[in-house]
């Protein structure tokens, strides 16, 4: 059964259709990558799924129940957490406090929340930095803090918005490992990514958006040979 179903979602801002009639679904336990050229509407779609936007048309079902129209915190309570492309750490809090704040969603007291937070920080390799004020964290670690914070809400599904963008090669490998480890915990992942190395090595399936429309869907091998996708990225070939 599908964990998340995106059904005919359209999101219009005035006259601009950022997403039009996009549909796909994600099965439990898989990693689905959402790719597309800049401005294709990937983050807009995330914001619709996550509840920041109410879609103009269509609906999003999570665990068989409609979630579009709910507030973001309600959607997070139901087990769907997200990270932000432009990282939003709670700047003047320490790394540990950042994660404690989100761990409180499932914890009843501070000890439980701290325990969850410390476990999450070890899992994401940030435990050594737990006392650093997050404003002073380098970008690579901030990206991982985003993941840690989302994980601390103990979700069943994670939306990762370009969690690997701007990382150096060693950080990149570390992040890929973490994403795989998250999947091994049974958490379903929807990821937006530009980095082809990441996409090809982790995703089970790929959905391609271009100008707000879904132009292709399939396994990494299928997508890399798809003519429409190549055109969207590289432009149309001149006819002979």
């Amino acid at each position, binding site marked *: 059964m599908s964990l998340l179903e995106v059904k005919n979602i359209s999101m219009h801002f005035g006259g601009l259709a950022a997403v039009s009639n996009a549909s796909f679904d994600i099965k439990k336990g898989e990693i689905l990558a959402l790719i597309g050229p800049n401005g294709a509407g990937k983050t807009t779609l995330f914001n619709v799924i996550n509840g*920041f936007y109410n879609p103009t048309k269509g609906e999003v079902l999570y665990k068989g129940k409609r979630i579009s129209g709910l507030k973001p915190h309600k959607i997070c309570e139901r087990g769907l957490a997200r990270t932000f492309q432009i990282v*939003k750490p709670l700047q003047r*809090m320490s790394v540990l406090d950042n994660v404690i704040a989100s761990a409180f969603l499932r914890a009843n007291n501070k000890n439980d929340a701290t325990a969850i937070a410390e476990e999450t920080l070890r899992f994401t390799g940030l435990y050594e930095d737990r006392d650093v004020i997050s404003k002073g964290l380098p970008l690579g670690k901030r990206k991982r803090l985003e993941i840690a914070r989302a994980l601390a809400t103990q979700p069943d599904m994670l939306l990762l918005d370009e969690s690997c963008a701007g990382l150096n090669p060693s950080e990149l490998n570390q992040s890929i490992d973490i994403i795989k480890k998250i999947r091994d915990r049974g958490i379903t992942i929807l990821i937006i990514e530009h980095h082809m190395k990441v996409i090809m090595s982790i995703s089970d399936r790929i959905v391609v958006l271009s100008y707000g429309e879904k132009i292709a869907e399939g396994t990494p091998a299928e997508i890399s040979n798809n003519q429409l996708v190549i055109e969207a990225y590289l432009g149309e070939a001149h006819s002979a």
Partner: protein
Amino acid sequence: MNKYSPFLLLGLLALLPFVGLSSYMMHILILFLMWSVIGIAWNLLSGYCGQVSFGHAAFFGIGAYTAGIFYAKVGISAWWGMPLSIIASTIAALVIGYICLRLRGPFFALATLAMGMILKVIAENLTDFTGGDIGIMLQQRTWVDKTGYYYIILAIAAISFFVVKKIVESKLGYYFVAIREDQDAAESLGINTTLYKTIALCISAVITGIAGAFYMNYMGYIDPKVVFALHDISIITIMVVMVGGVATYWGPVVGSLIMVMLAELIRSIPKLGEAHHTFFGVLLILIIIFMPNGIVGDFRKFAKFFGVRRAQR
């Protein structure tokens, strides 16, 4: 500041009246404690939760008028104003919160500023109810001596201090700070930002309202220009916390001590009149430039400036 210093200070303050201070000194101490209470309340909403209010006079005035109106119209002791102001302030906070909390940052600040002004105009014009500009006067204050008032406001200050400290260290505190740092991130982490902002506003309003009800009992006279004053209440509230240190436990207490003493000092300068506001303005500018975290927050800078050497902890 170790774990016991709040209790130590409390004990010290409790013993202070036995030294035999003059009535004037007791008045200063009472004002210091009252401003600490208001500062602590504002600090919770604006310091920790990040919702900067320019209209805390609204809640102070509502507390004062709750005590005053029940005294004048119902004929019960003005001390009933303290428990009753809890209800009145909560209702006011819910209404004001419903209107203002959907706004963010400076827009929230401006909306609260307007709320304070609106309540002042209402209090001035509902003459049948509030007595308008004539105000409300107690026929007789409970005590001539100030010691009783001193212990009451000391108790209120101590309770507010510990309640707010407890809140800040709990789940609520984490949620408040998360909202202050990034409301969108907080929302996506499962925090119901509207609910928690409303909670912060209500707690802050209740504490401020109790201080207002105390003011009615202590001063024995209120009118709209005094209790709903923009610069003498709302702005001074912000100053108290800014000077002392925003989002610190001791900030409001330290700030209140300095502001009350400064206000008395400036008032003693002859022929100054309304110009004494200038001093506060200049002080605020200096604080923002040189000590944005206040005396408590930037204690090291402060100590260095005055050449105080502090032993390493």
